[in-house]
């Protein structure tokens, strides 16, 4: 009997370490929750994975609203930050990096765009409330969230202060529904504490069981924030188009992208944009035509157009002076055609 017991113990002992090794292989990747530079590895390692995922969603939500505030000038703005000392600080800085802000490490609170943030817990007449906030200069974005066994869900409007430009902010609250739910609802929309704030659209979102999405297939933080950044460029051109008939054409160039999926401009195209930007005068407008598809619709080409607009903006040219043109029905391109694609840029000058 003792022998059999020993045998069983021996087998069990053999199996345990094997399972331990197996577990180690599916280790979590802390790096996705940390800023690329200067993260606090220890704090992130000590924080449970579920908590990190929740904080990542909260950070994505707040920062996606922040990038759509025109005053933030995402793409050209550099934010000053201190080294994070909390898990929320880490996920928030990563979200700011992924959104396309320049990040400058400072030893104290130097800089016009110094970033402050906080997580506050309060016991109120409505029950316990946890709110998260981020502030840059005078602009603050904050929202209350509930945590349940499914995950984290907003429990208030996203409140923005320090700007009146809140009407055009679109929230991608589907990042919360992907966690799944049992028919619960949460409120979605942007608001302001200010009494003279403009009216905004508010809706409710229901989270169902079937909304639950495997983690690997959920929307990435980078994707959500890139879309938010692109939205602000595209919207500006669509909402305030210039009547270029009154302008004179000054210069024209055609930038060539390697293929239809590429948004890498390359050194030659970048140099051409630099030359055009050097000769920019107040009142000039750069018109970008990226889409020449005969069916008049091509989202991928608009992303290339936005890419060129970003390049002009990085040279200090206001996004309002760069106009993304709608598709011109000029050519037919088969869906399998992956040859180089052109983006035309015309510089207009007021007479």
């Amino acid at each position, binding site marked *: 009997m*003792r022998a*059999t017991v020993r045998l069983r113990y021996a087998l069990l002992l053999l199996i345990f370490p094997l399972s331990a090794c197996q577990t180690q292989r599916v280790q979590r990747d802390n790096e996705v929750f940390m800023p690329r530079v200067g993260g606090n590895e220890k704090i992130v390692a000590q924080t449970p994975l579920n908590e990190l995922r929740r904080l990542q969603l909260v950070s994505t939500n707040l920062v996606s609203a922040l990038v759509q505030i025109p005053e933030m000038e995402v793409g050209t703005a550099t934010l000053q930050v201190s080294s994070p000392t909390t898990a929320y600080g880490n996920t928030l800085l990563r979200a700011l990096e992924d959104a396309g802000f320049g990040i400058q490490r400072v030893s104290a609170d130097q800089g016009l765009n110094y970033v402050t943030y906080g997580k506050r817990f309060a016991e109120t007449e409505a029950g316990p409330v946890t709110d998260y906030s981020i502030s840059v200069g005078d602009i603050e974005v904050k929202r209350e969230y509930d945590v349940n066994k499914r995950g984290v869900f907003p429990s208030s409007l996203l409140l923005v202060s320090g700007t009146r430009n809140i009407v055009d902010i679109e929230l991608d609250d589907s990042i919360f529904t992907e966690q799944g739910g049992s028919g619960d609802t949460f409120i979605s929309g942007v608001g302001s504490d200010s009494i003279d704030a403009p009216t905004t659209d508010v809706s409710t979102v229901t989270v169902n069981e079937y909304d639950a999405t495997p983690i690997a297939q959920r929307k990435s933080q980078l994707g959500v924030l890139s879309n938010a950044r692109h939205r602000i460029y595209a919207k500006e051109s669509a909402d305030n188009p210039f009547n270029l008939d009154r302008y004179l054409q000054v210069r024209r160039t055609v930038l060539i992208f390697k293929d239809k999926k590429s948004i890498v401009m390359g050194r*030659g195209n970048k140099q051409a944009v630099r030359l055009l930007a050097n000769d920019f005068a107040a009142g000039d407008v750069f018109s970008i035509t990226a889409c020449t598809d005969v069916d008049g619709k091509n989202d991928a080409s608009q992303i290339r157009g936005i890419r060129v607009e970003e390049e002009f903006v990085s040279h200090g040219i206001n996004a309002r002076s760069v106009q993304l043109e709608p598709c011109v029905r000029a050519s037919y391109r088969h869906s399998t055609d992956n040859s180089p694609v052109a983006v035309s840029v015309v510089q207009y000058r007021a007479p």
Partner: protein
Amino acid sequence: MRIDSTRNPRTLKTMAARMGLLFDMSRRIGRLGIIGILTLLSGCATSGGALNGNDAVEPGTQLRADMIADLMSVLPQMLDPLNTTIQLSDSASGNAAEAVPKLVELGYGLQYVDADQGSNFLYLSDLTAGDNPNPADAQLRLSIGSFELSRSYTTIQKNVSIDESANLAWRNGRAIVPAGPLKVAGTRQSLELTGINIELASAEGGEYSPGSIEYASLAPIEGGIPTISLITEDLVSRVTDAASAGPSLANLKSYDGGFSNIYTDNSAFASILDDYNRIIREFVIFPNDSQNLGKPGKLVVKKVAARFSENSDIIGITGCSNGPTSLAIGNEGLALGRANRIAEELVSAGISRDRVFDEGCWSPTTDAPGFPNRGVVIDLYRRAG
């Protein structure tokens, strides 16, 4: 018939023997199990150890980081860290991970982008990668915006011939030493070498000289720069008029394919010059039907380059060829070639190409007012105010 095995003495003996064997086996298996556990645990520990090993910076990586740090040491003199954000991307910046700690240390803002966005986008190229016969040698080129820094390095072992004042960083008895001057392109700004203060005096090695800076031209861009065409209606009509009187092209720069003939047109970049005052005007005279600059010509270009101020100046070049020529390219080709030759020389002297504007004047007769018949006019303009 059922045999009660426990009561049969033979069976009992056999059983005892079997039990003994089983006990012995189980002890062996137990031992094997413990050995197995230890082996597996050590295996797990080894993999953990390997991870820790990866965390520690490898000597080769440290040496490469030292090269990048040396390249970037002059960067704060070119771009103010407090007001500059540098863009990086995992896919388009090259193997630039070692540059990040140095950029942070220098105080630059960093912006991670998904393609190659940004006016200060960083490219790091290893020019010796692939066909490097000596892995101890490397040549790196760092581009940020319109600036380029490049330098060759070699790895040396610690030895007595190294001057004690040399500020080399020794990594396990090895260090990198520049094998030539720090080449700076895209600027003529006066820079002070703040990185490694020695360099190899000759390719053979062994002797060292003080570190130096050399101004060079920007690396050629693969595929070239897209043509920027002038399309002002007014200009188009003038070019059309001029074309009826003789050959003429309108464009901004000669390397874009052509430029205006100011014998018949106004300057193509007149609008750019609105806010500038001319500081100096120099002439370079070329031999008949020649684009060779010669020593006197090079001296004139050096003189202009020496007075060039990075932040406020632009240079206008007007290449001229007036009068009869026997060359097949004609006066137009000769004028363009001469202007381009001067532009090349200025770029080689470290002046950014986008600060040099060239155009031409050509005619079959020698009556171009204010312009030489076979020379180039170089104007240095400075921003007013």
